[in-house]
């Protein structure tokens, strides 16, 4: 990979459009102003009756209807909720990039790389089929009975929509994209990885434009069950809006969110050729594996640090360097910052491992304190917050920060947004199971 300074316009990757569907709104401005107010998207779960569950609240997307955003609603009438989120976010991004009017050169050079999660299980029917097919005498499921009940209760569209490549298929249909197409699912790191690999595809000359991002919801019976059993979710019984408190001493797990984030990435050469306005430039991407344990994060932060260092190296940024005015070369880190004991202290350690003494001078916040954890979609949404921070000169806060943790001793932009000159940001995402991804984005400068 060429160092950043040597890159030609066909090797430079710019962001020309962004969109998101989140628990705090469904368009760039609404969500950004909510983040600037330090608002919280958490409330009691409405998708199912969770009153007896260890966790009874989440950050749900509210009042979202994708239909008005679609060019061709009929093609998406069976879209599952995650595909709807994906279409909503991608439509905004496509519009901002003016791709409808300033068309791409060739639809076969418009690709898609998503980190979208699986669709929502047809819970009542699926669970009923399993229950009713149980044979008490053998203590096993009766296969013949299961097949009969399964065919009766479940339906084709709903089942096919659960395949993780369906948001990708819907987006391809809506925008006529026929270039390289991928969906990855590396748990909570997925959409950061998607954005990173999409940039690699553009640099390699395999496409001119990539629609990249993620969509996910796990706010359903088995999703909440799975994370409750892992004791990864906050089980706070107090005010749900206070439950997500990354980096705080009292943090007790993450809060589930849902939604989608999508960006349009393209080569600078292609953006210029169609007269599109670059919003920012993606200059670095790093990916690593902890190779430690499926349940725990590598305790020294080795894997997380490796992803950050690789992204910085690709960006041509010395983590220990300073600008002529003395500021560090990185102005802001969008933390993975889930609010679990382990993640936040190890991420802090990893940032210190990368930046050394400079770490304390680099503000790092977690919008998961406000939006919850959008799982596979989290990285894309957080990438967009970085670009917004660059444009607005404002850093989103980590809300609910009241009691410092000696193990988390960096600047977390506590509770209120902060005005700052923001040129270059890192966005971190670390998946359950140890897949780590970091992207580096900077203000666009010809």
């Amino acid at each position: 990979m060429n160092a950043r300074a040597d890159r030609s316009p066909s090797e430079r990757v710019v962001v020309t459009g962004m969109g998101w569907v989140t628990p705090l709104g469904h368009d760039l401005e609404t969500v950004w102003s909510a983040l600037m107010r330090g608002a919280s998207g958490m409330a009691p779960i409405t998708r199912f009756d969770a009153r007896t569950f260890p966790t009874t609240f989440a950050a749900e997307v509210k009042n979202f209807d994708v239909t008005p955003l679609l060019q061709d609603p009929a093609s998406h009438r069976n879209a599952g909720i995650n595909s709807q989120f994906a279409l909503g976010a991608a439509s905004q991004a496509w519009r901002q990039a003016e791709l409808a009017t300033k068309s791409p050169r060739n639809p076969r050079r418009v690709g898609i790389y998503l980190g979208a999660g699986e669709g929502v299980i047809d819970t009542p029917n699926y669970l009923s089929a399993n229950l009713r097919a149980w044979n008490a005498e053998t203590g096993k499921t009766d296969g013949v009975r299961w097949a009969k009940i399964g065919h009766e209760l479940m339906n084709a569209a709903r089942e096919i929509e659960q395949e993780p490549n369906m948001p990708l298929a819907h987006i391809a249909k809506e925008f006529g994209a026929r270039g390289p197409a991928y969906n990855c699912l590396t748990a909570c790191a997925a959409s950061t990885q998607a954005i990173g690999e999409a940039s690699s595809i553009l640099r390699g000359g395999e496409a001119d434009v990539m629609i990249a991002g993620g969509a996910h919801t796990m706010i359903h019976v088995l999703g909440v069950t799975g994370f409750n059993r892992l004791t990864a979710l906050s089980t706070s019984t107090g005010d749900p809006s206070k439950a997500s408190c990354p980096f705080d001493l009292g943090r007790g797990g993450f809060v589930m969110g849902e939604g989608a984030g999508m960006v349009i990435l393209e080569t600078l050469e292609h953006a210029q050729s169609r007269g599109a306005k670059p919003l920012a430039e993606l200059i670095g991407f790093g990916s690593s594996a902890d190779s430690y344990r499926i349940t725990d994060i590598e305790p020294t932060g080795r894997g997380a640090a490796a992803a950050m260092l690789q992204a910085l190296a690709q960006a041509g940024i010395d983590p220990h360097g300073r600008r002529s005015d003395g500021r560090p070369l990185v102005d802001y880190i969008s933390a993975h910052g889930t609010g679990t004991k382990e993640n936040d202290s190890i991420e802090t350690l990893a940032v210190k491992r990368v930046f050394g003494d400079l770490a304390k001078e680099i503000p790092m916040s977690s919008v998961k304190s406000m939006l919850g954890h959008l799982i596979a979609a989290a990285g894309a949404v957080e990438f967009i917050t970085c670009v917004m921070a660059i444009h607005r000169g404002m850093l989103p806060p980590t809300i609910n920060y009241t009691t410092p943790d000696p193990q988390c001793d960096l600047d977390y932009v506590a509770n209120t947004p902060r005005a700052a000159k923001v040129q270059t940001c890192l966005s971190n995402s670390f998946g359950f199971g140890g897949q780590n991804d970091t992207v580096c984005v900077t203000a666009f400068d010809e």
Partner: protein
Amino acid sequence: MGYPAPPMSTRAESAQSKRRVIITGNGPVSGFGVGMEPLWKGLCAGESAIRPITSFDPSGFISTAAAMVTPEQLDIRTIVPKNYRKATKVMARDIEIAVAAAASAVHSARLTTRGTAEGVTPTIAPQRVGCHIGAGLIPADSDELASAMLSCRDAQGGFDPGEWGRTGMANLTPLWLLKYLPNMLACHVTIIHDCQGPSNTLTCAEASGGLSIGESMRVIRRGDADACLSGGAESKVNYMGLLRQTFAHRLAPVPTGADGCAAVRPFDDAAQGTVLGEGGGILITEAFESAHARGAHAIAELVGFAARQCSCIDTVGVDLCGADEDIACAIEAALHDGAVRADEIDAIVPFGSGIPNVDAAEAKALRAIFGDRTSTIPLITLAPQIGICGAGTSALSVSVAAQCLLMQQLPARLSTVSSAQLQVDAVARSSRHHALGTILVTTTGMGGQSVALVLRRMT
């Protein structure tokens, strides 16, 4: 079709500027067993691993046969290092297959890793080893879920979420979710073999394995790793897998007692659908120069790769009618990536599922690229022997293509009686020696992601 190809001189330059990627280890898992030896023996002998499903009573489903990996063939506890045996309790079937394939690939490449010898210096520095493994949607084990829910029935015998929240969910093991996350295939493999480089999990149905190998090529070419464990694995031989494939009209009818192998007839005039298999493949993909420096045995070179999204009339890519242009575009781009001319292709491993609309789109795409030669290029159709193995499918295709190049031999083909309508070389015949320099692998999965790879013989 597509965008105009650059002139040959540019092609050669673009190919030269990329790091070369070769295959140095080959670890397939199929209904014939773990490793290349049983697979190659079965393929060449013209045997089929498709049998009646025995792990449950399948008689309520349209298809009662599959190519399954038996417990005798794959005992996961004997495959993982001793200190990792406890973790096998949280491995779904798909994860077991991937872990077994990885062990076989590492063994085949004669690599030393943490998984082969704890405490010994690994052959390749862990930071330089990546891992890309395609995976499917893994359904929860029905027995496990149902037995946890028994106390949570409402008055009608249906599911009562209130009781589930109070008492039922505690019946599930705390790590329950981790058995079923698709990225756990790669996570277990990276932990066992200490791969600390870039790692990804691609979930694009049957294209996943090929896309993962392509992603490894991209990662190695850009210099972020020197070697990768690359491939995919899946088993859809379970209730939800069979039901979803039935809903997608992909399965050939195989009533109880019928011959499953004969039911899957790739490119046949009377094809009716496919039969499922359990399996996958992991390859060791490696930068040519570092592999050469360590004296690695080169099995084949991966010279070209491309991916495309098909335009799908039904949005979801179950019906691929009209997708031939995009499949052809992927093939054309892979040939271009490898600076290979269409007339250099000596054999093709197609998806060849026996699903009529998919076979037709694939055959039409081949004709667009290869013209009249299409009817004489040997197709290597694996479905009648090992079934269609979900996310493992295209990884197994690459695995077999590499072996064909190494052995200069075509495996036997089964089942197809006449391919007069689609005019491809797919009719059943026995294995034979054949000069093979370059092989094309192509797969288009449900959802419309199409992948093409070009492999070349190492000389």
